[in-house]
């Protein structure tokens, strides 16, 4: 009962607000209302409401149509009629198209489309495509609009169902309208003519008129006034008989534009004024703005500046309200011209500046439109989600929940968006920082690497040169000087044999002894320079010699342990390792006061670890003046030369362990050539 009353109140409101209904119509509506909202809902109730919607829709009373549109959805849900519900969704979408509410159109149309596909209702599906085409066109997404219209037209063209074929003109109209926006007027006319072929049925008048208007407009744009005149007079005639205010509005508007283009200013003004008055009835303020501006322009052309001014001012304020800045700019232009004509140059200058400012914003309008369209797309999605959540909720709480949810979601989304934005910016900047840091680190690493490589290279060449030199000197000592001394000794020993008296000569004996000492010294020096065993037999043998020699001299008891060392390494590596062990053992003998030492070589594939450990007094690694450190520095640089790792662990009175690890290759040839 409450519902019924509210609809009644609504109805009364429309009656008061100047919507003219014939007595006959009113009677029909009353009876329909009583059927629709009777105590027990059934399929008749839905039918009644739908009829009501149709009546309001066809006469351009979209607000009322909208109210009953929602009522139809409620009723369809009550009687659980899916087909009816789907149509109701579709109707609601169609109503929204005419209310310039594209997001609602897309939403309800989407619901209808989904159901239509499920129900395999081609008729409805094609209608949905048509609605999409109109909606997307109004959103400025012409590609999507054409896409839907053409898809719908294809289905309809191949259909044998006359009901579906009847949709074709609507689709052609959609295609034509989209082409017109893209300045393809010939295409608009082509599709318009195509559509007209299908509109010779009663009840199709609405579309027929719209199509006629589209064609008129296209001809006007092409400056083919004669053709335009033919189409517009038919359109106005038909719209007068239809009684749909929205259609009449558009027909008159197009007619006025036609008059204006034909140079018939008086008729143009008269017709524009018809439109102007109708705009209030159908609440089309968008159109009203344009029309007011056009009237002002017409009066200005007629040099009736006093009459032009109020219309220009109204167009100006309305356009600012409606954010129709193209019109704002134009109205400022008109106002400037009027002021100039009336000699008010100060005002003219002001208007000129304002015109400039708004023309700039007009240029930006395209961008703004894009933003608006994007925003609407986003909102449609958002709403879809919202509503999907809501449908599950209790109908009684629907509204409050909706409001609350909307607030929460809007707030939440806002917060989320803010958070995401900050997060993104933060991440971006952090990533940038990281990237820069990474790059820097990489550069430093490269520099370090190059430095190290340079070091190794210079060390390598130095060491190689050093070892080559040592080898050469050792050989010279052995073979040259050593040979000479050996030979002298041979001569002397022969002489001693031949001249027995010499055996008693002290001077001869001392000379002989010194020669022997010198020869021994040369041998020792040469050996230290480059042990022959190292070159001839390899590292392990040379190390054995070294350890044996040290142990034999009772300097230190050195144990050598080698594992996996059967294969020789390249000669420079072997020399280097030999020198490292030699240096470490020399260090131990000189400083550690150790009695025992272990030299251990473990090789596993490419990995070689070398341990030299003593049981000496240990030393403080941090004390840089320690003499042991100088020896260790040499060792470290040699380990570095081999790209090895060294760790020194020294404990007071327990001893020192030096662990070195290397990666070695098996090729004994490589470094001999280098």
């Amino acid at each position, binding site marked *: 009962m409450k519902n019924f009353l509210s609809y009644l109140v609504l109805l009364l409101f429309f009656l008061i607000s100047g919507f003219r209904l014939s007595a006959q119509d009113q009677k029909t509506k009353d009876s329909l209302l009583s059927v629709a909202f009777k105590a027990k809902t059934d399929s008749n109730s839905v039918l009644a409401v739908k009829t009501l919607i149709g009546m309001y829709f066809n006469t351009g009373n979209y607000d009322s149509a909208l109210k009953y549109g929602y009522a139809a959805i409620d009723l369809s849900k009550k009687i659980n009629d899916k087909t009816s519900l789907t149509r109701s969704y579709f109707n609601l979408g169609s109503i929204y198209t005419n209310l310039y509410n594209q997001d609602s159109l897309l939403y309800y149309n989407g619901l209808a489309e989904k159901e239509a596909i499920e129900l395999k209702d081609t008729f409805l599906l094609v209608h949905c495509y048509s609605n999409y085409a109109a909606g997307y066109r109004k959103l400025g997404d012409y590609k999507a609009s054409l896409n839907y219209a053409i898809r719908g037209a294809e289905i309809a063209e191949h259909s044998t169902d006359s009901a579906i074929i009847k949709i074709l003109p609507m689709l052609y109209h959609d295609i034509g309208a989209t082409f017109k926006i893209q300045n393809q007027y010939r295409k608009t006319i082509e599709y318009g003519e195509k559509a007209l072929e299908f509109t010779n049925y009663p009840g199709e008048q609405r579309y027929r008129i719209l199509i006629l208007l589209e064609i008129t407009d296209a001809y006007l744009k092409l400056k083919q006034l004669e053709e335009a005149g033919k189409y517009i007079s038919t359109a106005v005639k038909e719209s007068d008989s239809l009684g749909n205010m929205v259609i009449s509005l558009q027909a008159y508007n197009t007619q006025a534009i036609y008059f204006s283009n034909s140079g018939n200013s008086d008729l143009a003004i008269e017709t524009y004024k018809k439109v102007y008055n109708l705009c209030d009835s159908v609440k089309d303020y968008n159109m009203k703005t344009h029309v007011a501006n056009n009237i002002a322009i017409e009066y200005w052309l007629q040099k009736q500046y006093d009459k032009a001014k109020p219309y220009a001012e109204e167009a100006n304020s309305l356009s600012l309200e409606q954010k129709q800045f193209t019109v704002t700019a134009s109205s400022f232009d008109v106002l400037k011209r009027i002021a100039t004509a009336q000699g008010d140059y100060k005002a003219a200058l002001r208007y000129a500046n304002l015109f400039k400012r708004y023309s700039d914003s007009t240029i930006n309008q395209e961008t703004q439109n894009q933003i608006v369209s994007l925003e609407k797309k986003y909102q449609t999605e958002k709403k879809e989600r919202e509503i999907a959540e809501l449908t599950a909720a209790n109908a009684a709480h629907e509204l409050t929940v909706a409001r609350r949810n909307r607030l929460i979601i809007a707030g939440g989304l806002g917060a989320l968006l803010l958070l995401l934005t900050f997060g993104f910016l933060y991440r971006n900047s952090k990533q940038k920082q990281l990237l820069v840091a990474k790059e820097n680190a990489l550069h430093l690493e490269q520099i370090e690497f190059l430095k190290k490589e340079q070091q190794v290279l210079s060390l390598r060449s130095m060491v190689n040169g050093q070892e080559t030199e040592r080898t050469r000197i050792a*050989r010279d000592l*052995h*073979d*040259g000087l*050593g*040979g*000479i*001394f*050996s*030979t002298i*000794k*041979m*001569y002397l*020993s*022969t002489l*001693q*044999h*031949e001249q027995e008296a010499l055996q008693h000569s002290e001077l001869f004996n001392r000379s002989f002894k010194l020669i*022997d000492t010198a*020869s*021994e010294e*040369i*041998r020792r020096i*040469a*050996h230290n320079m480059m*042990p*022959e*065993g190292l070159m*001839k*037999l390899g590292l392990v*043998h*040379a190390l*054995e*010699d070294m*350890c*044996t*020699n040290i*142990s*034999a001299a009772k300097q230190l008891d050195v*144990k*050598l*342990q080698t*594992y*996996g060392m059967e294969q020789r390494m390249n000669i420079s590596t072997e020399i280097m390792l030999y020198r490292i062990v030699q240096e470490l053992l020399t260090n131990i003998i000189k400083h550690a006061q150790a009695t025992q030492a*272990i030299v*251990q070589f*473990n090789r*596993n594939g490419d*990995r070689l*670890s070398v*341990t030299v*450990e003593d049981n000496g007094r240990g030393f403080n690694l941090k004390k840089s003046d320690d003499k042991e450190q100088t020896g260790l520095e040499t060792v470290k640089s040699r380990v570095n030369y081999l790209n090895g790792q060294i*760790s020194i*662990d020294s404990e007071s009175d*327990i*001893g020192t*362990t030096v*662990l070195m*690890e290397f990666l070695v290759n098996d090729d004994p040839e490589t470094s001999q050539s280098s």
Partner: protein
Amino acid sequence: MLSIYIIDDHPLVAGGIAMMLKDVGYVNIMGTATTGNEAINFLKDNKPDIILLDISLPDMDGLQLCDIIRKENKYSKIIGLTSANESSIITQLLHRGGNGYLLKNMERNELLEAIDKVINGKIYLSRAANEKVLEHFASLSSALSEVPAITRREKEVLLLLEEGLNGPQIAEKLFISPYTVETHRKNMMQKLNASSTQQLLKKAKEACLI
């Protein structure tokens, strides 16, 4: 008459040797060579009783030349000559079929003693070389008989492994890197011929290392 062939890149040394042997009636110097290849060519057709071989030759390694000579010639006695007194080289020479070893700064008596020894089928080593070789064999035999020694650090790692700690835990405890711990563990496994940590611990216990 004993025929002697001298291989030494230093003509002075060869001359010195010849000088020492000039009034030894039972010795005849067959010839001298200053390079390995010259010697190989000569020895194709000649079999001297004694070859004095310098270990350091300009064109090839003396030890290698010893091998080459021995392949064709089991008859000649080979005495190595070198200025270096290194046990590894001495033992290698003996391995390859050398019969003696003389340091170049020998005296006449030594040379005659060496000739006498090798001709009688004995091994001659110069006094100094003799000592070296003995030391060497001593260290070798001790190394063979002994259980491999483990370093202090290795023992610490071994004990912690026995406690059931893993690599990173041991590393933390000993203030060394886990990689180093791993190196120690692997080295010990290699040393004791163990294939797993369990086996390593078992073998270490058997060897009384822990």
